[in-house]
């Protein structure tokens, strides 16, 4: 008897582990780890088990962007604060920088939309919001681009290496005043934020730790081309006492001390959980995952894998408010849309509170409920309303006699239209979308578009194409 039960249990375990995640599961996974998903991407993941699906995502991570950056990113640039400029020259320089800043935002948003590994961009954005620098203070778009390249390279790499690299990153060194930190005149900005916001979190260090750590970072500087340079004559070679240890520490020593504290693994794990899973982590999961992160020497991939395979992740549908880029880029991805103008989309995201490359302050975007207030919610709805308004009229052109969709005709129409438009920007085509992806019923559309049932129930007789607009405007579309 006992043996039979055991055998049964053994037989059931792999079954559960290998069952396909289905469309709802695939939509959930792709929406959380990327920016929306079109029904074809969902169909690709639906038959996979949780483990297969997560491994597939992790096997496809990339380390550089596919979209070519604007040409100016590698060109020499004027130093901010160059003396003896006339008012007109200053204005022209500022205008050029603003122009570049806009192009840079458009470049990244486009990469989020087309990247074969949206997870890479999702994690790049996570680190951008954790190891924060912002254009307003950094001033030089080229430096923000270089930092973005670094964040992507280590997005699913190693947090320890990333921390060491970001401390020497020119944008960061300007943003948190490492460049103004010298022997005898310490600037504590970086030393404070590296402990408070990047590694330990408040309450896990003393003011003395900050003061002494600032001395350790002295001598880290930028040369005339804004590249990292160590200036020994500016370094404070005296003994420092940090976390009770005494020695002639330098900046890398301090970062290693921070990485040796398990609290750092816990702090980062907690933040990643809130980004990918839910606003309310449970203690057991956090303990398990941060222990793993620490043991694996801050390798990000195994942490991500364990987090995405935790049962809590698969029960968290609808618990996160979509960020502005998740909402806007995600909607474009879901409906295969190419925006006519990335600048307009960058401006929209700025209005919605997420101006990429320029977080509000060193704490980054607080996220969660704070994305939504009366203004931002109405602006989100206007964006979605305009998309539905501008959509091609629904004529049920591809509905067949038996209520099924004529996929072939839908595709042909799409190709004809793309050719006619010279492959230029396209607008939402509910009929084609429904035909190509077999979105026959309102229930099909709901499963593909929403994480939770709509707050406004749909009329029973709606078909898939008709359901798109009401589903986009439903409050449930704002969460995932």
């Amino acid at each position, binding site marked *: 008897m006992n043996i039979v039960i055991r055998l049964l249990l053994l037989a059931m375990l792999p079954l559960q582990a290998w069952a396909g995640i289905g469309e709802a599961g695939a939509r959930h996974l792709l929406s959380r780890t990327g920016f929306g998903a079109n029904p074809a991407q969902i169909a690709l993941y639906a038959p996979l088990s949780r483990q297969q699906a997560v491994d597939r995502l992790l096997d496809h991570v990339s380390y550089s962007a596919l979209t070519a950056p604007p040409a100016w990113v590698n060109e020499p640039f004027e130093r901010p604060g160059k003396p003896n400029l006339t*008012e007109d020259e200053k204005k022209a320089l500022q205008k050029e920088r603003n122009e570049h800043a806009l192009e840079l935002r458009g470049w990244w948003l486009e990469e989020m939309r087309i990247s074969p590994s949206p997870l890479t961009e999702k994690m790049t954005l996570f680190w951008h919001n954790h190891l924060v620098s912002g254009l307003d203070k950094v001033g030089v778009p080229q430096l923000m681009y270089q930092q973005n390249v670094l964040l992507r390279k280590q997005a699913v790499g190693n947090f320890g290496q990333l921390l060491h690299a970001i401390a020497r990153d020119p944008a960061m060194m300007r943003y948190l005043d490492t460049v103004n930190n010298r022997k005898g005149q310490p600037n504590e900005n970086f030393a404070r934020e590296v402990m408070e916001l990047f590694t330990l979190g408040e309450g896990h260090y003393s003011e003395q730790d900050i003061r002494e750590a600032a001395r350790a970072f002295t001598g880290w500087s930028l040369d005339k081309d804004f590249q990292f340079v160590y200036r020994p004559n500016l370094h404070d070679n005296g003994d420092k006492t940090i976390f009770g240890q005494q020695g002639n520490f330098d900046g890398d020593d301090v970062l290693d001390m921070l990485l040796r504290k398990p609290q750092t693994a816990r702090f980062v794990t907690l933040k990643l959980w809130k980004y990918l899973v839910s606003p309310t982590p449970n203690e057991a999961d956090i303990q398990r995952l941060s222990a793993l992160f620490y043991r694996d020497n801050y390798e990000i991939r195994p942490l991500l894998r364990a987090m995405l395979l935790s049962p809590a992740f698969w029960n968290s549908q609808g618990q996160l408010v979509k960020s502005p880029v998740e909402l806007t880029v995600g909607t474009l991805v879901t409906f295969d849309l190419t925006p006519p103008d990335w600048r307009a989309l960058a401006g929209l995201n700025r209005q919605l509170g997420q101006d990429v490359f320029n977080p509000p302050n060193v704490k980054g975007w607080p996220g969660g409920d704070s994305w939504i207030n009366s203004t931002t*919610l109405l602006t989100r709805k206007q964006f979605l309303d305009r998309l539905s308004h501008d959509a091609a009229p629904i004529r049920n052109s591809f509905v067949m006699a038996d209520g099924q969709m004529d996929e072939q005709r839908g595709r042909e129409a799409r190709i004809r239209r793309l050719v006619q438009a010279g492959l230029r920007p396209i607008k939402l085509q509910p009929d084609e979308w429904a035909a190509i992806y077999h979105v026959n019923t309102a229930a099909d559309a709901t499963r593909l578009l929403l994480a939770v049932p709509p707050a*406004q129930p749909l009329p029973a007789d709606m078909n898939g194409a008709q359901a798109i607009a009401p589903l986009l405007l439903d409050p449930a579309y704002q969460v995932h």
Partner: protein
Amino acid sequence: MFQRREFLKAMSAGLLVSVLPNLSYALAPAGYQRLLVLVELKGGNDGLNTVIPYSSDDYYRLRPSIGIARPQVLQLSEQVGLHPAMQSLLPLWQKQEVAVLQGVGYPEPNLSHFRSIEIWETASASNQYLGEGWLTRLFRSQPTPPGFAADGVVLSSQNLGPLDGGARAVVLNNPQDFARQAKLAADQQAGAHSSALSHILKVEGDIRTAASALQQPVMKPPANPADAPTAPPKAVGGFAQAINTLADILQNGTRIAVARITLTGFDTHGNQQPTQARLLGELADGLALFKARMQAQGPLGTTPWY
């Protein structure tokens, strides 16, 4: 050269005062019978060229080029006077309806512009990060009565400022637009939702409440223009438009506790004088306009909305 200082001005019944954030507790007991209007001079107004210490030799010594010449200063006392562009506030000053509070700040000022505003709007300590604006905290402990369209309306800005983080605040540039857009907000549905969805439904509810209150027909007969003591100054510019929008919705009987209007453009890194003169002129004219419109709508002191 000079110390940039962002300061808020609050006006109640034509009374211009700077309100310290931690005075918020003092506002509540009145039961929101008075309307608090906050005007944000965005970009860092030069306070020493707004209320000018014209009797100080140091002022002229330290400001050889951007100082305001003594004869042009609108004298308020033997020590200080207003920028010449603020002529329209003088009649209010003479009727003792304007007060000036100088040197408002907080200990250990943070020199980051962005962080300074955050401290200002959340009334936090210099080294403390708070997620809620000081008015949001006030309205949580002292909720506005039923029937209020919103805790506050925000004009000429997308930023909720001290109303951020939970207050029932709506951004209102054009009430008609708002009413139209508000149709995009869903009716609230009862039922169990995740906290994320509940928050969205709450905000949709706030929008609909405010929109339906704003759409109510005019409750009061229009005031007899002959009763108005002086013709209101002409409304020019975005600030005056915002003032008129606010006066319009109050005239409609819309009940709110706070309004916040932003006048932007003070971020003058060079060539300050003409820009600041224009902006301070807009500010003074706008405040005088508001006073005139409120007076025209009903005797001050008997109507609760001013």
